[in-house]
C-alpha cells in the first residue's frame, strides 16, 4: 500500500511512523486511518523491525478524528461504531499486541483519539509545549481508542472521570505528574531523545520486551495468583532464548550485551 497521509522510515531495526497531515494538526481522516492500520499490520509482521517510533509532522501530534473529512459519514444515520470496528479498534489492538515496543514522541497537541494513540504506546515522551485533551465529550461522545480503559489505569478512577467528563486541556507537565506519559523534554530535544529511547529498545532483548508488554496487559485483569503463573511461563520461555544466554554472559564478563531479538 502506498502511503499518502503517513510517512514510514526504516533504520536498522527501528521503524518511524509519522502522521503526515500537518495542515490539520494530523487529524485522522478515513484515508489516514486506513493507512495507519495497514502500516501497523506491516510493522507487526516484519521481524526485521524491533521497535517503532510514532510521531506527527509539523506542529501537532494528532488532533483526533477529522470532523471536516469529506469521506466522513454525517447525518443521523451515521454509524460511529462502524469506523471503530473497522479501523480504530484494530489499530489499538495491533499496537498493544505487537511483540515490540512502541515509543510515542508527542510533538504537539494530542486530542481525542490522538491522545488514545499516545496512551496506547508503551512509552510516551512529550515536548514541553504538547497538550493532551480528551475532546470527546465536547461533541457529545465518550472517549474511544481505548481511553476509557487506559485512563482509569493510569490516573485512577476519580481523575479519569473528570478528564473524560470535563474534557480539560492539560499540559505535558501535568500529564507526566499524573502518570499519563513517561517524560517531558524541551521541544527542541524531543525527537533526538525519543529516537534514542526507541533505538535503545530496538537494540534490546526483543522477546523480553514483548513478554513485558503481554504480562502488563494481562495484569490489569488477572488475579495475583494467575499472574504468578503467567510470569513463570514467560520466564521459562525467555530462559531458553539466545538473548538470555548473551545477557548472562555479558553480565558475568562485565561487558555490554549484544541482543539479537532471538
Amino acid at each position, binding site marked *: 500500500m502506498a502511503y499518502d497521509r503517513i510517512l514510514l522510515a526504516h533504520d536498522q531495526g527501528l521503524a518511524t511512523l509519522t502522521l503526515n497531515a500537518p495542515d490539520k494538526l494530523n487529524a485522522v481522516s478515513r484515508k489516514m486511518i486506513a493507512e495507519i492500520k495497514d502500516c501497523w499490520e506491516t510493522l507487526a509482521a516484519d521481524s526485521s523491525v524491533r521497535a517503532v517510533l510514532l510521531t506527527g509532522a509539523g506542529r501537532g501530534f494528532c488532533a483526533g478524528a477529522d470532523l471536516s473529512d469529506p469521506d466522513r459519514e454525517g447525518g443521523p444515520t451515521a454509524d460511529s461504531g462502524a469506523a471503530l470496528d473497522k479501523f480504530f479498534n484494530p489499530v489499538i489492538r495491533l499496537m498493544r499486541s505487537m511483540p515490540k515496543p512502541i515509543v510515542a514522541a508527542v510533538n504537539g497537541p494530542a486530542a481525542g483519539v490522538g491522545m488514545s494513540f499516545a496512551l496506547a504506546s508503551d512509552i510516551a515522551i512529550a515536548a514541553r509545549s504538547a497538550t493532551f485533551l480528551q475532546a470527546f465529550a465536547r461533541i457529545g461522545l465518550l472517549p474511544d481508542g481505548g481511553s476509557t*480503559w487506559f485512563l482509569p489505569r493510569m490516573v485512577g478512577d*476519580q481523575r479519569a*472521570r473528570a478528564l473524560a*467528563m470535563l474534557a480539560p486541556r492539560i499540559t505535558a507537565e501535568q500529564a507526566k505528574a499524573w502518570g499519563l506519559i513517561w517524560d517531558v523534554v524541551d521541544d527542541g530535544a524531543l525527537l533526538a531523545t525519543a529516537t534514542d529511547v526507541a533505538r535503545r529498545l530496538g537494540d534490546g532483548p526483543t522477546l523480553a520486551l514483548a513478554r513485558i508488554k503481554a504480562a502488563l496487559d494481562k495484569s*490489569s485483569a488477572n488475579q495475583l495468583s494467575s499472574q504468578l503463573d503467567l510470569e513463570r511461563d514467560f520466564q521459562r520461555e525467555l530462559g531458553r532464548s539466545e538473548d538470555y544466554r548473551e545477557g548472562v554472559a555479558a553480565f558475568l564478563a562485565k561487558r555490554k550485551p549484544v541482543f539479537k531479538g532471538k
Partner: protein
Amino acid sequence: MRRDRMARLRGPCQSRPAMERTPVIVVREAGVLTLILNRPQRLNALNPALIEAVNHELARARDDHDIRAVLLTGVGRGFCAGADLADGGPGESGADGRPDLGAAMDRLFNPMIRNIRTLAKPVVAAVNGVAAGGGANLALACDIVLAARSARFDQAFVRISLMPDLGGTWFLPHIVGDARARALAMLGASLPAEEAERMGMVWQVLDDGLLMGEARELAAQLAAGPTLSYAAIKKAMNVAPTNTLDQQLDLERDSQRALGRSDDFREGVAAFLAKRAPRFVGR
C-alpha cells in the same frame, strides 16, 4: 432567605416542620439536584433517615429528565462523619444479640453507593469539611470530587475494628494504587485535602470560601452538557477496571454508535465546525 429555601424542599422531608429535622435539604434548580446532608450537630453522620432520604431522591432523579446533574454536600463543619454510631449504631440486632452490620449495608448503605454509580448523570461531591469512614467513601463514589482546603479524608474504620465499606476497599486501590490503599485502610489514615488531591482522590482543592461557588458552577456546567455522553462515560468507567482492553474496545464501539445517533452529537459537530459554543439538550 430561610423561607425561600424551605419553599424549595421536596420529597419525604416536605412535611417536617423545622429545617433542623430534615436530614437532607433538597434543592432542584436549573437541571441540578442539590442534596445537602443536614445533621450538622453530628457532622452529618449517616443515620437511617438520612440515607433513606438520599436514596429516595436519587431514585427520583433517575427518571426525572429535567435533572441532568447532582451535587452532594453537607451543612456545617463536616461533609459526612460516616455511620452514626449513636443510638445503638447502624447494626440491627442479629439472632445472637450482637449487631448485624451486614443487614444495614444491604438495606441502606450499599444501595446508596449503587444508586450514585448507576445514575445516568454526573454526580459532584463538594466536600466542605471532614469526610470520615463511610463519609469519605461516599465522596469517592461520586464522579467528580471538589474539596475545601480544610477538609480531611479519613479511613477511620480500623479504629473501631472494622474495615472500609461503602465501596472503600474497591475505590481506594482503583484511585490511589494498591500500596497506598493498603496503608490508608490499615493505618486508618486521615488525609488533608491537598494530600488527597495529590493522590488522585480529589479532582480539585479550593479555598473554603470558594468551594460552594465553584461546585455549583461545575454542576451547572455539567447540567448543560451532553448528558448521554456523561452517562456513557460513567458506564464505561464503572466496568473498565474488570474489563480487558479487548472487551472495553467493543464497549466503546457500542456506546459510540449509540451516541453518534444522538441530537447532542449532531449539535456538537455542527458547533465545532461553525466554531461556536454547542447547546446540548441531553438527548
